[in-house]
């Protein structure tokens, strides 16, 4: 009895400690923003935001450092050539993305360890209507799952009585929006575009899921999905050490899986950045070209790459003056739809539902592209 009491007390103090740490972090952020505001009003807050996005997340200092190192090694003239510029972009971007990726995947995996699919399923079961769609889209961003586990996930959700709309909201937002993508977007494009990307991605997930449910195509799942029961299990709570270990494993596994994509992405980005004349890019993808969004989506959708490999390409296009909407369409196309995940999904749903799903997502991506090109001047 006494022992239990002591245990309870230590747990309470632990919780209190956690709350203190959380409050301290919030206070430090508020203090920084407050000082910035006092010193220079709104400009101060803006300066702080761009300092965080340019120097801490964007590592502009690293770019300068790489430039200095290259100039010292090969001379100023080399740096001014196409090859010099390409090499600088390649080195800077590779280092930046790998450092950000390692830090981010580690932190994200730690958060994800609190949301295994089994738990997500339980949480989602409690919500109804549009609220459930929104929760589905939000949980899609923090629940870890690979294309390999999309079928069990689909079965689990369906058998637990979660509606097809919510399941699809989850499936759309999951590859599209995640914390890692957000931070990387901040580092390249700054806060306004990054926040918009996330919000728009979530809205697309909610609307897409709702359409699938309301039109009734959501019922066209393969029969075996509906047959049989499903037990409710409480997954073992992980200890802090296990979570850290899990986060480390995830980080290494992800790095192993995507480093090729990153190098390819950065290579393409460096080529666009330094060798392809701006006029060419402008002629195909320029903001004033009505077909730029269609081309970007057309190229992006069949392509399969990790968001981390897509960003350097987007970054280079951005420097060449390609519209924000066009870039978002391209990035969303690459990440949201891919051949491997479609093949897995085709085993779980009937063709009619699969094609509706693809059509809705593609339409959404194209609409987003046009809307953002129209109002893009607000962000730059």
């Amino acid at each position, binding site marked *: 009895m006494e022992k239990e009491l002591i245990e309870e007390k230590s747990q309470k103090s632990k919780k209190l400690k956690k709350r203190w740490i959380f409050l301290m972090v919030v206070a430090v952020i508020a203090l920084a923003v407050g000082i910035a505001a006092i010193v220079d009003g709104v400009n101060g807050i803006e300066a702080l935001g761009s300092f965080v996005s340019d120097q801490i997340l964007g590592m502009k200092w690293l770019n300068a450092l790489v430039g200095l190192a290259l100039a010292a090694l090969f001379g100023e003239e080399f740096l001014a050539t196409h090859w010099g510029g390409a090499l600088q972009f390649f080195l800077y971007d590779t280092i930046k993305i790998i450092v950000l990726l390692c830090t981010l995947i580690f932190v994200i995996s730690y958060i994800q360890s609190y949301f*295994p699919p089994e738990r997500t*399923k339980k949480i989602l079961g409690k919500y109804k209507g549009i609220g459930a769609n929104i929760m589905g889209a939000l949980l899609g961003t923090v629940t*870890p799952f690979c294309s*390999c586990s999309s079928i*069990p996930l689909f079965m689990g959700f369906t058998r637990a009585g979660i509606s097809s709309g919510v399941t699809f909201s989850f499936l759309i937002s999951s590859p599209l929006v995640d914390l890692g993508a957000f931070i990387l977007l901040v580092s390249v494009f700054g806060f306004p575009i990054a926040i918009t990307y996330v919000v728009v991605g979530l809205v697309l997930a909610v609307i897409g899921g709702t359409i699938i449910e309301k039109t009734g195509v959501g019922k066209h799942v393969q029969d075996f999905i509906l047959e*049989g029961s499903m*037990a409710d299990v409480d997954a*073992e709570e992980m200890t802090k050490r296990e979570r850290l270990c899990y986060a480390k494993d995830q980080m290494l596994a992800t790095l192993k899986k995507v480093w090729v994509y990153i190098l390819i992405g950065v290579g393409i980005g460096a080529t666009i950045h330094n060798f392809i004349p701006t006029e060419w890019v402008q002629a195909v993808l320029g903001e004033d070209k009505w077909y730029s969004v269609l081309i970007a989506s057309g190229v992006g959708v069949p392509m399969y790459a990790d968001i981390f490999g897509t960003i350097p390409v987007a970054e280079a296009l951005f420097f060449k003056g390609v519209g924000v909407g066009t870039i978002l369409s391209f990035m969303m196309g690459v990440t949201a739809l891919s051949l491997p995940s479609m093949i897995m999904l085709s085993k779980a749903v009937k063709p009619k539902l699969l094609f509706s799903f693809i059509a809705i997502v593609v339409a959404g991506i194209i609409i987003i592209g046009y809307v953002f090109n129209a109002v893009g001047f607000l962000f730059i």
Partner: protein
Amino acid sequence: MKIVTLGYCCKKSKANHENAVIAAKNKGIQEEVKNIADTSEIVKLGVMSTPAIMIDGKIVSSGRMLSVEQVEKLIEKYI
């Protein structure tokens, strides 16, 4: 002690099963480590993310690939 690994579709699940076999051997467990690969069966057990491990009918780990040492620890815990 009955050890069953769930999932055999991707590399991770295969490695997980192999690690479980080695761990069971190291711990001197006579019974064969079984594997369930059928997705429908796996979902029936309440698991949605493989690789997973079940010991004596209880799901003890899911969604993670475990190393030999980690499986050994689980075996010790549930023995």
